[in-house]
């Protein structure tokens, strides 16, 4: 099949209303949650069944036309930006929960199922799906699998890879494989984990078996305010050293607090330089003992104020402030870049101080919201894209922060993935032999080089992609102001 024969073949496969080719219809698919990159696909196919996805992949392979599988397009690394003139396979309608077994604590879901929908289904049984990215009310499991998504509770519960037991997938050349199973244990290599985080380069997950976690009998959520960001960072080290194992430890700095307050009125202390959220979870007697120790540690750590969520509503409000921080920062600045490098937890204070100095040096505001328990930073670099050169200056600062993470022995990304955005840094974190192995793994799964081409292992230059506002923002449909 030639490239030009692909569109007619797609038209024979799906109904006309599920094959989008007009520029107006394609606009919504040009970009993702990063908004800094966009590309125009040749067509978007709205798939409705696993068999259709398999057939679409086989057609693209036969025609040697690149494709990208897309969920809700919330990627923060440009991972869901289409390949120029390629095909977008939209998976949102593959949203069946195929199996939900509360006694065995597993669910089998299709890739278009929204992350939070699994926990909602599990709620009557006291079960939930642990990975909780801030976008969990819209992002899909397929995307979570592709990017090994994290969330606020990774400190104790791990990332997506730790919660996926099995995957049925179509590889980029059309072969269908089944990895893992539905037991917590497994024989043979853990190939399921290798598929997770492959950023769409190996193929498309069609069915995902996830484990469900029991909701703890009690949560204790504490908000502690600090006069300095460093103070909050040091408190995290104290908690870790003490042997406590909280479900989550999160920090927000002054700028992020102000943004969250303006957006959702989370009632955070207005004058704090930083707030630390620590959440304990488990059986009541154990959490009672942990809580006593935690309050003592926070007292010794110089917290200027501590607040304890009295009920589920107050807990929800604390988390709402934290989870809305990214979108809230949009109120402070017309544009921002979010980074998600990781540093060793013991060097958190040093990393924050260096970021603050960099920010002051180049006169660009940086808001910090991060998963402190994991050392996973989320500096939000604020700029106004209408100012000439502002985006490039923000990018330079972002690069400096990424290199800082590498220098401190960390990672260029904790949970957002490499995508388009961090391709040029992968080679600074890994050696040539490591990268060569990654490329050969990709080639083995995708001999034609068509699956989400250009992401993760692509060339570092940005040919074929352009910066700018989200197409819907440009069209005046959505706004961040």
């Amino acid at each position, binding site marked *: 099949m030639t490239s030009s024969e692909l569109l007619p073949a797609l038209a024979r496969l799906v109904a006309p209303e599920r094959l989008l080719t007009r520029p107006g219809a394609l606009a919504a698919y040009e970009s993702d949650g990063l908004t800094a990159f966009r590309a125009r696909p040749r067509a978007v196919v709205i798939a409705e069944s696993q068999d259709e996805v398999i057939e679409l992949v086989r057609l693209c392979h036969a025609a040697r036309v690149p494709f990208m599988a897309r969920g809700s397009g919330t990627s923060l690394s440009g991972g869901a930006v289409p390949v120029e003139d390629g095909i977008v396979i939209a998976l949102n309608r593959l949203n069946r929960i195929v199996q939900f077994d509360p006694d065995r604590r597993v669910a089998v879901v299709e890739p278009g199922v929204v992350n939070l929908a699994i926990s909602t289904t599990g709620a009557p049984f006291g079960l939930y799906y642990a990975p909780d990215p801030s976008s969990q009310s819209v992002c899909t499991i397929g995307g979570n699998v592709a990017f090994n998504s*994290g969330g606020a509770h990774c400190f104790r519960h791990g990332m997506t890879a730790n919660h996926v037991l099995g995957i049925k997938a179509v590889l980029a050349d059309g072969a269908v494989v089944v990895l893992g199973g539905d037991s917590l244990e497994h024989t043979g290599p853990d190939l399921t984990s290798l598929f997770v985080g492959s950023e769409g380069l190996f193929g498309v997950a069609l069915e995902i078996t996830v484990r469900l976690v029991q909701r703890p009998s009690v949560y204790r959520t504490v908000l502690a305010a600090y006069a300095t960001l460093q103070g909050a960072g040091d408190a995290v080290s104290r908690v870790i050293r003490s042997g406590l194992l909280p479900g989550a430890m999160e920090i927000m700095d002054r700028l992020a607090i102000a943004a969250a307050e303006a957006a959702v009125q989370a009632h955070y202390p207005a004058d704090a330089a930083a707030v630390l959220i620590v959440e304990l979870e*488990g059986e009541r007697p*154990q959490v009672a003992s942990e809580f006593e120790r935690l309050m003592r540690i926070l007292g010794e750590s110089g917290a200027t104020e501590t607040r304890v969520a009295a009920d589920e509503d107050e807990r929800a409000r604390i988390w709402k402030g934290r989870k809305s921080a990214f979108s809230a920062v949009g109120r402070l600045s017309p544009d921002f870049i979010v980074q998600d490098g990781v540093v060793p937890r013991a060097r958190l204070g040093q990393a924050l101080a260096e970021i603050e100095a960099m920010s002051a040096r180049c006169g660009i505001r940086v808001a910090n919201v991060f998963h402190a328990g994991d050392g996973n930073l989320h500096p939000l670099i604020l700029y106004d894209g209408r100012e000439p050169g502002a985006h490039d200056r923000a990018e330079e600062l972002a690069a400096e922060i990424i290199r800082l993470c590498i220098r401190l022995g960390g990672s260029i990304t904790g949970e957002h993935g490499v995508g388009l955005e961090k391709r040029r840094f992968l080679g600074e974190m890994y050696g040539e032999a490591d990268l060569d192995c*990654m490329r050969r793994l990709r080639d*083995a*799964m995708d001999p034609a080089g068509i699956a989400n081409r250009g992401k993760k292992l692509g060339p570092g230059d940005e040919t074929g992609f352009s910066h700018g506002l989200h197409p819907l923002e440009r069209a005046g449909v959505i706004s961040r102001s």
Partner: protein
Amino acid sequence: MTVLPQSIDALCAAVLAQPHVGVLGAGTKSGLAPAASDVIGLAALTGIVEHTPEECTFTALAGTPVAEIERRLLAHGQHLPFDPPFVDAGATIGGTVAAGLNGSCRLRFGSIRDFLIGARIVDGRGTVVRSGGTVVKNAAGFLLHQAMIGSLGRFGILADLTFKVFPRAEAYATIRAQVGSLGAALETIVAAQRGQFDLEAADIEGASTVWLRIGGFAESLAPRIESIRRTIGVSSDVLEGSSDEAAWHDAREMTWVPDGAILTRVPLTAPQVPRLDTVLAGRGASRRYALAGHVVWIAWPDTIERLSHALASLHLVGQVVRGPRGHALVGAIRDNEFGRRVASVMDPEGRFAP
């Protein structure tokens, strides 16, 4: 011939020296030992390279005994939450990962895949490949190090490994209940799980003794134990301190396995347990179900062919941990195209092929 490289460079050279090589750690898992005549032993590639207690991470060379790692961690109130087996027998950290073995007390916090954060691997071309890193969260690259878990050396040889660890609980206690039947045992475990208890382990020994373990601050254990006993509603006794430790030490070292039996590990799910148990009881096999029915350890008294046949008839796959070599996996083994492609990348010349 067995060579014992003393450095990662020497390990690379040893891989290239022969067209076909097998790998051996301390040899605690006889069924998984290589059948190849040329064997690379990892006993000399040993030592904890780095341990940062406040970071809750460590890196160790693959031949390091798990016991050495546990001693070091314990001095800082930390442990390996996946409860590796055969520690006293001398198991190495590399062998534990390559075999993919977790113990009973991994129910609460997870298995090797939840704690392995990076590794250096010598591939079939004698090249050192690094995957993952040394920080607890990392989405850069592929999770190739995770694919090494349970790979039995097919993709390469682990040279060093980096883990995150957790604080060890201050104290533990165990409830032991004789419930009379397998059905009652499974129901007891379901009742305990529905009760939202944070169980460290939930095992069924034989077909009717339920073992439930919890851990935490010493002062919290008594009320939690009472609460669990009330919920499960069957007669039980409680093991604390050294008797609790001894019970789980015996589970970890598999002291219940009779001499000469083939020790096999079979992942499954709780609904598959009753049918399998009927077969095992019929053959007089000792067995221990762990992880609330997600895995069973079988001491098979008969031939490996009959074991394989029995598992295949139930669509189960077993890993022969101790027994005759050359049959690492038995039962309903399925070919895996994805795994074959990974092997073609990591070991293009088939040096590590069984």
